[in-house]
């Protein structure tokens, strides 16, 4: 997932960059409103984390400008303004979520994930492909009745990226943009291919076709193979609970 963080507090910015990147989020940052608005216009972010009190252009103006321009990226306002009227104004201006400082890092991450799922129309927090269960809330992967599959943050981020776009072709460029902040030293390198290869090794079962299919000249598609006797995309009991 690619995020934009617009926050003028240097220390908070540094901490969020470190934490979110370690969780596999791709992150662009801006320390003032002008730069934030420029970046938000430039890319289609999965979520924009926006402070309200910013130098040059304030957060509310950025929010309204983006919505006026038709930008639909989910926006989470992260601010010290905790009064109810401030929240109402923020949400009315087109924000999707509002979190006040001080906040728990885990809560911020959970809200970012929820906003991303909403963006991609995934209403549940866990997705099952064949017998592979991806718990988007807990950021964990395991086989049904089996042990957890441990994977690095970057691998999980790639899997999550595929899951949110399952059955759809995603290009190498899209993956580069979303997972590497568009900061690859050599765009022609095979970093994406290598990452997909590593992910396949982690989630595929020997003897079965890969869950990630390569479409030559186009990119990759994540889809259930249908070879396991169960319904595809079964919703787990926890999800049922979540739905209710």
């Amino acid at each position, binding site marked *: 997932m690619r995020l934009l963080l617009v926050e*003028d*507090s*240097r*220390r*908070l910015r*540094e*901490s*969020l960059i*470190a*934490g979110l990147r*370690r969780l596999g989020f791709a992150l662009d940052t801006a*320390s*003032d409103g002008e730069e934030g608005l420029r970046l938000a216009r430039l890319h289609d972010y999965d979520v924009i984390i926006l402070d*309200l*009190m*910013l*130098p*040059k252009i*304030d957060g509310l103006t950025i929010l309204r400008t983006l919505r006026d321009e038709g930008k639909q990226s989910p926006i989470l306002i992260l601010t*010290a*303004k*905790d*009064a109810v009227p401030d929240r109402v104004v923020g949400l009315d201006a087109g924000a999707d979520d509002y979190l*006040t*400082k*001080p*906040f*728990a*890092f*885990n809560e911020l991450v959970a809200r970012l994930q929820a906003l991303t799922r909403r963006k991609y129309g995934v209403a549940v927090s866990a997705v099952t492909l064949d017998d592979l269960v991806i718990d988007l809330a807990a950021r964990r992967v395991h086989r049904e009745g089996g042990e957890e599959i441990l994977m690095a943050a970057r691998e999980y981020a790639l899997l999550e990226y595929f899951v949110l776009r399952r059955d759809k072709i995603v290009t190498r460029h899209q993956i580069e943009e979303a997972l590497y902040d568009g900061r690859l030293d050599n765009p022609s390198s095979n970093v994406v291919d290598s990452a997909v290869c590593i992910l396949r090794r982690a989630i595929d079962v020997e003897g079965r076709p890969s869950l990630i299919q390569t479409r030559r000249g186009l990119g990759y598609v994540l889809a259930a193979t249908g070879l396991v006797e169960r319904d595809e995309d079964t919703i787990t009991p926890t999800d049922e609970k979540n739905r209710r």
Partner: protein
Amino acid sequence: MPVRSIRRSLTRRLLIGLTVLAAVSATATFMQARKSLTRQYDATLYSQAKALASLIHVKPDGQFEFDFDDRMMPEFKRQKFPQYFQIWMTDGSIIERSRSLGTRMLSRFEGKVGRPDFRDIHTTSGRTGRAVSYRFFPQLDQEDDGERGSELESSSARPKTPPVTIVVAQSRKPLQRVLDKLLLIILLGALLLPAAGALLVAWSVRRGLAPLDDLARQVQSVTPAKLDHRIAVKNAPIELRPVEAKLNDLLSRLEAAFNREKRFTSDVSHELRTPLAEAMTAVELMQRWPDDHEIRTASAANALEALNQMQQLIERLLLLIRGDAGKLALNFASVDLTEMTRNLAADFTEAANARDLSVAVDLDENLSVKSDPILLRAVLRNLFDNAVSHGTEGTAVHIHGKISATEVEWTIRNSAPALNLEDLPEMFQPFWRKDDSRTGDAHSGVGLALVTAFCSALAIQLHAELRPDSTLEIRLVFPPLD
């Protein structure tokens, strides 16, 4: 001590006053009426006595003649409350008495000749009456009746006859009846007046105190949530106008103070939220990735910085609160303002260079003021910091200091094109910033508020002016040296 009620106390006092006044008036009226009626009664008796006296003549042979006909004076023969008379000669022999006396006799009493003497009399049957005694010289009959009149005119020419005493009396009952009726009317009036007065007083007091009640109602309706309410008493009397005006003035100041307090509390909370979020996030990261050296190092540094910022902010707020409460510890001493300014200018050289600002200091030598050196340094440091942090890049910060016969004046000027006149009073409020951002970690937002509090404690006059060329000038005028 019981709570006094103006209404009750006013009503009670007015009623007591009214009752006493009614009683005194009734008594005085009755006394006056009785005196007046008795006088009238006496006058009637006296005129009767004189009329009877005019009927007595002394013949030339010394015999008394009394030309009385009770048909002409029916008062002496009527059945109901008749009048009585009895006439004596000097030797006590009776000349005549009215038939109305029957067998009774009037007591003889007498005063000076020609002067009536009035008395209350009591009959043997216990009745009371009023009587007048009139002692006079009866007329002497002359041979020539035609000359009698003229001779009577001159008493000196009249031959002396022995004086005769006539007593005319009448029962007091008719007078007493009138007096009793009058007393009854006055008593009824005296009783009714306080009763009617009570109603009138209650109505008047209620009506008179209505504006006060209205004022009390409106004052009671003022709550911390409704401090924007202003008192407007309907038909406010002139006595309440100053109270109304003062209360509204007080409410305005209270509202302003409440709003300031609310804004201050909100600002403090807001100012602490960001460093708190920074510290919390940093600590959470360390907890989540305890083995990540990079996270640990950077987060520890961030957390410490954020906590330091909070500590500085809290210390400055405490100073501000102490300053506002007048609880700053002051140690006045002679301070060399020239030296202090030059040292501070040197301290800020690096910060000024970083923003491409030049600092020009133009001071009289040995500017000496009597002040608290620590607080004064804090004032100047904050003003330097403000000028160097907010002065337009590439411009100059000017500091001037001069001494006159009566005072020392110190000014600092910097270019401030973003400021406008409305900002001037606001910029000395805690946490005021031209824009909403909280970018500067080094700026707590209370610097200029501290300058105000410290200047007030040090008796330094603080003036801020925005010149037409968008230069902000802050001027300090120190109290005259002894």
